[in-house]
């Protein structure tokens, strides 16, 4: 059944299979989802490696992402230039990392990048405030938000430098076994 497809060459599909956690069928299914987002933009023939990017607005309107408070950050983290416009590679990468087969460390790495709003490789107080604001949608007052950020740093900051590094984040994730199942987008 998979041999009849003309979208990818055999080597391309093999490469995708080896580089993501998806089987061939799932990769094809994901490709068609990608193609449905922008049928005029995305060609049905990827054998010539076309350079096609689906703009962020279309990505963010996918049903799996459209109500997620972090959809913009997710798209930014996984896109080529950090602006949210994604190629097919980025798209597959994103859903591969967010699938249930990805290991905890890989997910923790990308979760860290998602929560790192200013891209300075540390989750500082400002990043935390952004995260909390997005999570609570204005329900908490400003003092509560800063109190929360302070408490989070108290709990998770291992080397006490006032911000979370990747190690601190991973350490904290180790103590939150739910992370594996919640950091998961089903497609």
């Amino acid at each position, binding site marked *: 059944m998979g041999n009849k497809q003309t979208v990818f060459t055999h080597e391309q599909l093999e*490469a995708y*299979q*080896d*580089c*993501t956690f998806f*089987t*061939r*069928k*799932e990769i094809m299914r994901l490709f068609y989802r990608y193609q449905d987002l922008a049928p005029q933009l995305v060609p049905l023939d990827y054998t010539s490696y076309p350079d096609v990017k689906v703009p962020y607005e279309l990505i963010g309107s996918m049903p799996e992402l*459209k*109500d*997620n*408070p*972090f959809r913009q950050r997710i798209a930014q983290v996984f896109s*080529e*230039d950090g602006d949210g416009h994604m190629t097919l*590679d*980025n798209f597959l*990468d994103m859903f*591969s990392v*967010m699938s249930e087969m990805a290991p905890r*460390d*890989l997910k923790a*790495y*990308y*979760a860290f990048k998602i929560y790192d709003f200013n*891209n*300075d*490789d540390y989750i500082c107080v400002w990043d935390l405030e952004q995260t*909390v604001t997005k*999570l*609570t*949608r204005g*329900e*908490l007052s400003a003092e*509560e938000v800063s109190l*929360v950020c302070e*408490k*989070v740093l108290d709990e998770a900051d*291992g*080397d*006490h*430098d*006032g*911000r979370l590094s*990747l*190690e601190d984040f991973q350490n*904290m*994730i*180790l*103590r*939150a*076994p*739910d*992370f594996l*199942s*919640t950091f*998961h*987008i*089903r497609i």
Partner: protein
Amino acid sequence: MLSGDQVNEIIVEVENVPYGVQSHPSSSQIVPEKTLANASVSLVSSISDIDVTDSQVFSNCNDKKRKQFLRCSTPANESFSQTLHSSESMGLDTPRTSHENIQGQKLIASLIPMTSRDRIKAIRNQPRTMEEKRNLRKMVDKEKSKQPGRILELDGCAQCVNSISLAYRRSKNSLSELFNSISLWQKTLKVIGGKFGTSVLSYFNFLRWLLKFNIFLFIVTFSFIIIPQLTMAEKNHLQFTGLEFLTGAGYFRDTVMYYGFYTNTENQHGSSGTSYNMQLAYIFTVGACLVVCFFSLLFSMARYFRNNFINPHIHSRGIAKLIFCWDFTVTHKSTVKLKQKNLSTEIRENLSEILQENVKLTLNQQLIRFSAHLAAWVVSTGVTIACCIAIYYLAENNSEFLENHRNPGAVLLLPFVVSCINLVMPRLYSMFRLVERYEMPRHEVYSLLIRNILLKLSIVGILCYYWLNIVALADEECWETLIGQEIYRLLLMDFVFSLADSFLGEFLRRIIGMRLITSLGLQEFDIASNVLELIYTQTLVWIGTFFCPLLPFIQMITLFIMFYVKNISLMMNFQPLSKAWRASQMMTFFIFLLFFPSFTGVLCTLAITIWRLKPSADCGPFRGLSFFIQSIYNWIDTLSTSSSYLWVVWIYQNLVGSVHFFFILTLIVLIITYLYWQIIEGRKIMIRLLHEQIINEGKDKMFLIEKLIKLQDMEKRASPTLFTPERRDVEQSGPLHVREHDAARDLRFRRSVQEDNLKA
């Protein structure tokens, strides 16, 4: 102005020094790079094509073209990724090309000697973009093919192994594709997860997992027990009335459904060629099913424990978990809003808890609380014991009751009472909440669970006791069939009650919550009690498979229907959970429950049956024997007469039947357990020490940064003209009056400048 390369090299060199002087832990953290590869080798050149200028190097990371590789520290057990990530253990603001080349080279070098399976796993786990992974894969393949000498060294055997593993991997892929295509209810689960979140989804996943168990049980029993019996079926002389579906008796008594129908016709067919030893088939099938279930449960439990068992050497309040474990599976707009609101409430509660944490209770209050807990436990245990006694009394007098009331539906009284108890008691237990006060809500959930478990398993236990001690020894005509029928009725009544609860109870609750008392609102899905219900029915099924081989089939249908009923009821009558439900920890606990009291209880019951009880004389395949296990003894005896199967006899006599063997085995297992326990203790101590070390080094870093800033301040004030232009560029890009969180980066820059000074 220093040339790009020189700047790179300096920064690289300095970068290594601070990490090198740290005493790095052996187990998990970064292994620093000590060697500098030739920067001109660009293996992974497609990763970044930036011009390394000073400003880009030192500027803040706003450059989107740059791929930023954070240090990935990995747990100790992933040794291969340790090597991989060690090659990425560079800092953040180092020049890209040379470092990535070094990284890429090291990475490729470490990937080449791996087996293809490990290599693919390593490539997949890399936190890189697709293009980089593809190139990595291509590079590794190219490098591998460029080593002809190595390949020639692999003799035919290794190549054979390689091709076999490749074929195995391909077949595993296609098999998993097949499984995914026939995987049940994928879309439904996605909708449930989207609307209610991961926690409710865990219940449905558990249901699906139990369904797989039952499908397996059914297939095995069907192939090995039921089909052979069907071929030797005798005609059923009983009449069929519709009541059989409820009572399980009547027409069904003489069908393949119950043990009593089975015959061991080995003797009959003995002369005409093929004979089927139903005794052995029965015991071995049931045994094989149980063994497979045992290992499956064991491995699932081990996997869950490994992933979810946390060793909190630091007590964490959990606010960080609330923030960072947002449920990404939720896709429904209203659910997202609701979850956001609930999260705010929980955060507020958590904050107030933290603020009140230091409030210690007075002795009086502690005493009151303790006595409330004690009273609640005494009452709940007492109620459980009372229920058990009631059921036992009822069961004992059931036979007289049945003789007095000739109504065939009267046999349903006992199952009815049991189901009523199962329905009412949990509600009673949850009312204890009004009296008891717990410090942590988690304790409340656990104590409620334990009470419910005690209740349900005591009921099963008392019934088993009754069946095995009274019914089996009561000299009835076909006691195994009777037990099978009892279990069937219990399951059926439970199913009916669940349906009624879903259709009527939850529906009524919704009407009340929405129309009459609107302050109540919609109810929330009680995951714990539903999962306990599943465990209870599964326990009954496991026990009952011996007496009623068709039971897995019935349970299959039941679970199938329950899935859809629960799903529809969920969508109509429930709202998403307001409190965070620790799904993974709970699932671990539930699977542990399924294994430990439930499955081991089943094993004990069946062991007692097979070893101690006398089969009925007129029905079933074991008729005529004095014990069920006698069939195995007879088989061994027959085998010992034939010469080609003496090894089986030897195994039986020396391994299975010998006490010395088990003694030695137990001793070895105990020794290994003790050693592992000691290793774990040692690792715990090491974790604590490492944690303290991290804290100390953070403090050191802060101290050094402050000192250095002070020194720089003094130098700058003393002689501002001494600074050469390039250093001023450096300074301007990394200003002195940085915010504290840039200070660490500056540390490296300052040191680089000093190194430059030393070199010059």
